[in-house]
Every structure is written in C-alpha cells, then in structure tokens.
C-alpha cells in the first residue's frame, strides 16, 4: 500500500506540482488549503505524513502543529520561507519533525519524507551512526571495534542524534534532553560540547559527516 501524504498549502500551483511529484515517487496525496481543513483531513483520511506550509491564510502553521500534537504523533514536515526562520524553529520545538526551506528541489523534500516515514525511532540497546556503534546499556561507543572515551554528557548527546538519524533536532530539544529543561537557552554551551564530540567521533572534525549542523536551527545525525 502506498503511503498517503497530506499537503497543506494555500498556493494552488504548489499543490499541483507536489501532487504529480509525490505520485511519481510512489506516494498517494490529498490536499488542504487551510489549517482547519488540514485538521479535518487528518481525522478523515488518516494520512501517514503531513507537509505543512507555515504561511497559511487562516491560521498560523504553528497552531496547526500544536493542535495536532495533542492527539496525534503524525510526522510533520514544515515548508518555510527564508523570512520565517523563527517560526520554523518554533514549529520544530512544538513537535514538527523536520523542515524544508522554500524554494526546494524535489529530491530534498523526498529525502526528508523518507526519513520521517521510516519506522519509529530506533529502540533497544544498540544504536548505529555511520561506523559508530552505541551501546546504550553499557554506555559504550565503539568505532570499528575500538572503544571511544566519551563523557556521560557527550554520550547522551550522541545517543540523542543516533536515535533518529537524518532528522533535525533543535538546540532546545538537545539541550532539554541532555541537560534538562532549565538549560534550553544555553546554545553556546551546546556548541562547545558538539565540538568536543566531533573531535572524538569524526574522522575529520572540521568537515563533519556524522553530526551535521543546521545553521540557526540545530543538529542532525547522519542519515543511515
């Protein structure tokens, strides 16, 4: 069965090309042009993923995510314009799964789509990130069988990124997860830890391939 994608955008032309592109890429799609319609479609059609434009005429895209997250874990990819940087980050903090900046090439959107549609975040004790094997129970990280020495915080950070490879995690999400909700504003602190972590796990820390930066937004573990 082909996955069903709900496209929410008020621009008819965007709906038009996305419909064709998703059909060609192996997805079914349905559309909505307002926030209210989007929520109604979620209830009626039970889509597998929502592509949500942040600039809707009736409601703020963020409000749609907030309402949606009260009842559903439906993966959401937000489409944002360059001047909606803040709204994009807020949408991610509110529970959107990823974002694509407009204008975009279709390949970019399809890659995010595949990551988000993949089964729920990896559970269990052994996580993988590129050549790294992360043993959550033993608090051990090995690369090609060689153990790496990480501090507990570095380990937690790496585990968070490895749990959902390819998905963006905002600064706030990472800070809250590793250091607790009181530290969500300490972005410079996070940056220092990411630097230390890269020095230990990356082949070339100045050109990282495992921990990728989303400027102004957060970090992304390398897609598997």
């Amino acid at each position, binding site marked *: 069965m082909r996955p069903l994608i709900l496209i929410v955008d008020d621009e008819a*032309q965007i709906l*038009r*090309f996305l419909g064709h592109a998703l*059909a*060609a890429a192996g997805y079914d799609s349905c559309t909505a042009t307002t926030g209210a319609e989007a929520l109604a479609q979620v209830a009626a059609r039970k889509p597998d993923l929502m592509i949500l434009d942040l600039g809707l005429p009736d409601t703020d895209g963020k409000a749609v995510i907030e309402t949606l997250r009260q009842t559903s874990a439906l993966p959401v990819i937000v489409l944002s314009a360059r001047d909606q940087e803040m709204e994009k980050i807020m949408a991610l903090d509110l529970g959107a799964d990823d974002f694509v900046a407009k204008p975009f*090439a279709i*390949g970019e959107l399809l890659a995010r789509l595949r990551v988000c549609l993949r089964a729920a975040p990896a559970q269990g004790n052994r996580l993988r990130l590129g050549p790294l094997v992360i043993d959550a129970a033993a608090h051990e990280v090995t690369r090609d069988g060689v153990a790496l020495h990480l501090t507990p915080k570095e380990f937690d950070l790496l585990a968070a990124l490895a749990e959902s490879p390819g998905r963006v995690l905002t600064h706030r999400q990472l800070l809250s997860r590793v250091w607790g909700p009181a530290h969500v504003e300490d972005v410079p602190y996070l940056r220092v830890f990411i630097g230390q972590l890269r020095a230990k796990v990356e082949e070339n820390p100045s050109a990282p391939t495992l921990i990728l930066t989303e400027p102004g937004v957060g970090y992304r573990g390398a897609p598997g």
Partner: protein
Amino acid sequence: MDPDTSPSSAPPLPRDVPGLPPLPDGIGLLASAGLIALAAGLVQALPPGPEPARPLFFLVAVLVAAVTFGFWTGLSAAIGAFAALNFLYTAPLYTFHIARAQDFYVLVIFLLVAGLAGLLAGRLHDRAEAARARAEALEVLGALSAELGLAETRGAALAAARGQLQRLGGGAVSVALQDGVPVADAALLDTDLAAAERALRNQRPEPAPAPGWPGARFSFLPVAPDLALGHPRLDGREGPRRALAITALAEQTRLALQRLDYAEKARQERLRAETEATRSAVLTSLSHDLRTPLATILGAASALRELDMAPEARADLLAAIEEEAGRMNRHVTNLLQLTRLELATPMRPAWVDLNDIAEAAVARARRAFKGAEVALDLAPLPMIRAEGALLEQAVFNLIDNALHHGRAPVRLATRAGQGAVTLTLRDGGDGPPQAIRAWLDGPDLRPAPGQRGLGLAVAKGIARHQSGRLTWDGGFTLSLPEAP
C-alpha cells in the same frame, strides 16, 4: 517648561521703572511757562477779585502742567508759579522781594501746596503713561503670540516677529547666519553687522551703545542659533520699558522658532518612517510574489528531471512552469514600472483611444490567464492625450486583480462625460478590503500593508502619472482627463 533648565525663559513684563521718573523735556518746560503766563494773564484780565483767589489760578496752571507732562514739569511749574506770584502780586510789586511777613507765609504755603499738587498729579500722569505703555506692550506681545501660534513656517514666524518689533522698537531688521556670514534683510552698516554677529555668537542680546558712543545703531537679540532680530536704539523715556517688552518678544519668537524646528524634525522623522514602512511592504510583497512562482518552477523542474512520470503529469508540470514564469515576468514588469513611476519620468503623451487600450488589455489577459472571461461594454469615446503602453499596463493590472481577487463575472465598461473618459472594471465579488480602499484615496504609491502584489499600486501610479485618478465606487474606475 521646567524652571530649573531654563531660568531665563520668561522675562518679566515691563513694569514701572523704579527710581525717579525721567527729567522733563524742553516742551514740558515751555508749556508750563506758557501755562503760568496764561494764569497771570487771566488774573490781569478778569475784574479784580478778592486777593486770595489769585494763587488758585496759578495752582490750576501747575496742576494742568503736572497732569499733562509729568512730575518734573509739575515741580518746575510750581516753582515758576511761586516766582510769578511773588513778582506780580506781592509787595513790593515787580521785584522778587517780599515786604510783609504775612505775604511771605502765603507764598511759602502756596509753594508747598503747588509742589505737592504738582508732585501728585505728575505721578498720576507717570502711572497712567506706564499703564498705557504696558498695555501697548501687552497688546503687541499678545498679537505676536497669536500670530506665532498660527505660523506654519519659519518665514511666517519671522515675519510676524518683525512686524510686531516694528511697532515696539520703531524699526526691525533680521540678520541670519548663512555659512557663518551674517546676512541682513536690510541695508546695514558693518558696525551693525558686527554687533549682530556678536549677539549670535554669544547668544546674548547686544544692546546699542548710548548716543554719542561709537558702535552699532541697532540693538540685536538672538532668536535662534542662526538668527537675530534688531531694532534701532531706543531713545526717550519709554526706552527701558520697551526694551523689556522687546526682550519678551524675542523670547516668544525664539520659542516659536524652536517649536517649528521640532515640528519639522518630527515631520521628517515621520516621513522617513513611512518610507521605511512602505519599502518593507514592497520587500514583503516582493518576497511573496517572486518566491511562490519560483518555488513551483524549481520544484516542478527538479521533479521532471529526477522522477519517472506519466506523460500527462509531465505536460501539466511543464504548463505549471510556463505559467509561473509568466507570473514572475508580470511581477518583475510591475516592479520596474513602479520604480519608473516613482522616479517620475515626464509624460510623453500621444493621441489614444481608451477603447483600443481596453481591448488590447483584455486580449493580453485572455492570453495570460487560461479561461479568463471579461465582458466588454464600450461607449464611443473622444481621443485623449496619454501614453498608451502605460494605460494598457494599468488596465491589464485591474483585470488581473479582478480575475484573481474578485469573482466572475468580470465586466469592463468605458464612458465619456464631464471632461473625462472613464474605464470601470466590476466583478461579482465584494470588492477590496477597507484598507485598500483607503490606500486608493491616499497619496501613497507603495502598496498598503497586507496588500499582495504590486498590480494595483502600479495602476494607481499610472493613473496619477497620466493626470488621472483610480477610485473605487463599486468597481475600480480609472478616469482620465479629456484633451483640452
């Protein structure tokens, strides 16, 4: 106003100058001599009355002199009357000797009474004079304050101040610093200009020296950092009072000029903020109107290249790319047009028929928008002087607006009458929101906040550029003047 920050802001109104009143002038003395002579004449001419009545005649002369000319004149008249009485009527006659002790007492008491009466009457006179001068100064200042309150420009405020200074100071000049050089609005001597420059440099009044001393003939008072008012030297007994009134006048003028300065600064600041706001409105509109078609073009093109698609889907994506490129093109055209209109290039009119233009615009709209329906209702029109290409753009934008923001059916009508030709575009919708109707009537060319697209802004700009108007009256109406 805070008294701590400007202790000198309110100079006192002219009051009675303390100390003795000014000395009598020649006219007063001559007049009192005349009055005494008149009294003596009357005493001589009348039938010989009782002797005690004679001093009373002289007393009247002293009172009249004092009331008319003031304190000193009254006192001089008293002494003169005493002398005349002694000379004419006291034995031995026609000498200043006094033979009888009794006459001596009469004369001394007369002198006392006359002196006191003269003193009182004189002071009364001086008080009345002072009150009159005060009233005049107050009237001048009151008039000035009203004029300054109404003044909208620096020039008007200055003219008002000059006019009232003319009344108070018996003449008025203004000296302005232009590039550091004092420039007067009347012919002044170098000494006068130098005094004005000193007043401006020190920002302090520069009074004219007393008569006979070298220096300027004018007193100067600064009223702004680069502007001083001057008046001829004040002579005579009213001088000190007038000087005080003039100080008050200068202060009022200074405050008024300051107020105008602040108002001007506030106006410029407001203008700058408005320009800034409209610029950001254009940027927002730009980013939306260019980015949306761009997103479709990039997305569709990449999908065509990367994905394996059904032939119908490919055809539809190619059509979408074409349409969106056309939309971008229209937007860029409007943007350039708006820039051109804002630069206010001069109009290059030719004879055109608005009906031809309407038909051309409708044809273009049918090509640009698939399935566009515009009903035409054209009345015979006189030809007008205008730029056809610009008008076609304006009409096309109105059609574009009606097709995309209004509702079918869209109907275009032209009419002639009342010295103008009009083109009205109606649709089945509710018309533009209130903000856009208000914007249409306003002076702004840049789009109103929340207005998507530049089409209406360009149509409005073109209407204005062609000496016409774009209004809303249940439909967008473009009216253009008939050729004279």
